[in-house]
């Protein structure tokens, strides 16, 4: 249970309609201060619109929200003073240099020129872009642009930061850098609302997750609860010798239940939520003299999460970010599922 003052975000019944499309169709969110809260969903689910309403860029058509205790409609200025936004499009000026971008934001926030320059240099250093600081952002790589974007959001450290798909389109190394920055921010006490399409990202960073689909929250819980509710990922084993597959099939079925024989004659897979159980099953194979060429224990993908929660695959909006689907009549919508806290996997 949280009291009002513990909440960084307290939204209820947010609605935003574009024409006939209810992009956000009654979103409730409660986010405690100091945590990372993930909003997970496919393109067009309403994540960006929700963030834009909370960051006061878009006015909700219905519902209300308080961000750090301030009403997002009536006290927009107070909200803007405490939050910052890193949008899906990198929100930096590509016709300026990285350094100029940071100085610009500093000056707009009331930092004096000399101090703004000093702060810009400090941030460029910390984010590994000091060498490119004098070049136009146009020429930056996706990862550098993202880091600059985040740096621009913390010229004055915000109480709450909105991160909208911060790693979409980044290579794994840049992605890890962004994750490290997010962890550092949280460690210093900033609350983060993270929108993402990737279950792995939410799993790595978030303390709590809301799954959003067609403009409504369809499930909430910790990453572990979410994965457990989906029934976990899968263990895939490849054998050195395909002729040992029948024996492996027998052993794995005994350890894990239903086992699928893959098209690859040397491979088998079984659904497996518990990493410990999975690795025990693999040791069981080796103990029995079956030579294992390789194995992987995968997490359920977002698609699987969606399928499990909604009964339909995560559809992708054909273009752009706004959804194109007509809304379901409200009475057909199920209430958000609160996931049971007991079956969390370790």
């Amino acid at each position, binding site marked *: 249970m949280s009291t009002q003052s513990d909440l960084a975000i307290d939204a209820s019944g947010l609605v935003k309609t574009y024409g006939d499309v209810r992009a956000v169709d009654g979103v409730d969110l409660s986010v405690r201060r100091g945590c990372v809260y993930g909003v997970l969903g496919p393109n067009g689910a309403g994540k960006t619109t929700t963030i834009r309403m909370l960051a006061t860029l878009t006015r909700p058509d219905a519902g209300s929200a308080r961000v750090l205790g301030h009403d997002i409609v009536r006290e927009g200025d107070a909200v803007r003073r405490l939050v910052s936004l890193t949008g899906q499009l990198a*929100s930096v000026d590509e016709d300026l240099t990285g350094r100029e971008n940071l100085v610009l934001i500093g000056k707009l926030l009331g930092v004096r020129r000399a101090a703004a320059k000093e702060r810009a240099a400090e941030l460029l250093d910390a984010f*590994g872009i000091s060498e490119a600081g004098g070049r136009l952002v146009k020429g930056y790589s996706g990862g550098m642009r993202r880091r600059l974007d985040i740096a621009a959001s913390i010229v004055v*450290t915000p109480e709450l930061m909105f991160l909208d798909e911060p790693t979409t389109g980044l290579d794994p190394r840049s992605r890890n850098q962004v994750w490290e920055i997010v*962890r550092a921010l949280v460690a210093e006490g900033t609350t983060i609302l993270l929108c993402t399409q990737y279950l792995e990202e939410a799993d790595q960073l978030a303390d709590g997750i809301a799954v959003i689909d067609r403009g409504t929250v369809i499930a909430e819980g910790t990453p572990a609860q979410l994965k457990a509710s989906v029934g976990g990922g899968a263990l895939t084993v490849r054998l050195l010798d395909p002729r040992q597959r029948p024996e492996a099939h027998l052993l794995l079925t005994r350890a894990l239940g239903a086992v699928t024989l893959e098209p690859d004659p040397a491979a088998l897979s079984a659904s497996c939520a518990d990493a410990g159980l999975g690795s025990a099953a693999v040791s069981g194979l080796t103990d029995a003299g079956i030579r294992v060429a390789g194995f992987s224990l995968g997490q359920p993908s977002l698609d699987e999460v969606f399928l499990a929660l909604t009964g339909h695959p995560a559809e992708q909006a054909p273009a752009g970010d706004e959804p194109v689907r007509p809304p379901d009549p409200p009475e057909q919508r199920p209430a958000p599922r609160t996931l049971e806290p007991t079956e969390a996997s370790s």
Partner: protein
Amino acid sequence: MTTTSAAPAPLSPETDAAAVRRAISSRSRPAPASRLSTALTFGWRGMLKVKHVPEQLLDVTVTPVMFVLMFTYLFGGAVAGSTAAYLDYILPGVLVMSVLFTTVYSGVALNTDRTKGVVDRFRSLPIWRSAPLVGSLLGDAVRYLIAGVVIITVGVLLGYRPDAGITGAAAALGLVVVFAFGLSWVFTTLGLLLRSPNAVMNAGFMGIFPLTFLSNVFVDPDTLPSLLRAFVDVNPISILATASRGLMEGNAEPGQITVVLGVAVLLTAVFAPLTTRLYSRS
């Protein structure tokens, strides 16, 4: 399906976690910047862009020079009997035309800005909501000044001598820039209503071209058919051109200057709030 990674990947040498944490450990908040200071900062942003892409100044330097030369030597003899006589008439007119044409680009630039994420950044800052708009128009006013100075300089090189001297020329330039500031709000509104920079450019020139040509910028309206003349006489651009000529020659009528300033104030009063409203909802 992704393979579970055993441990978080080590931080690359480029991003220094300790430095990041140091950088965000300071939680001091500066006092909010004043409206004027934020607007000036946005003006500074406009100047930085000119610094990085000086070619942007071509439209305010080369084009006006072409206009002066073309009109003086192509039409001067035919319209006014001699190029020298026409130069006296056309120079303040070309000043008005060139600067007003430049105002269309304010709308184009705003439209370009909006298609990028940077507007979201500005809108999420705790600053005066009109600051990005007022600031970029202040920056544009510098461009108008540059265009004006280029035109007057070219005129002087060609033999134009304003009777009211440099003070008169400066006053005329000042009046034109103030009017242009008012007019540019019309194009920023257009810039937020239309979909692409090109559409803004086309619509803008479709409006400003006839308005400029149906004025006394190029010809004395005495020879025009009465209906056309009636329009030309009330066209604010005619009044601006006449007032500019008057300021340069030292015989300006205060009434005309008042009308010009009044129109500028009116345009600003109507279109500045409209632009701000559209910008806040974009």
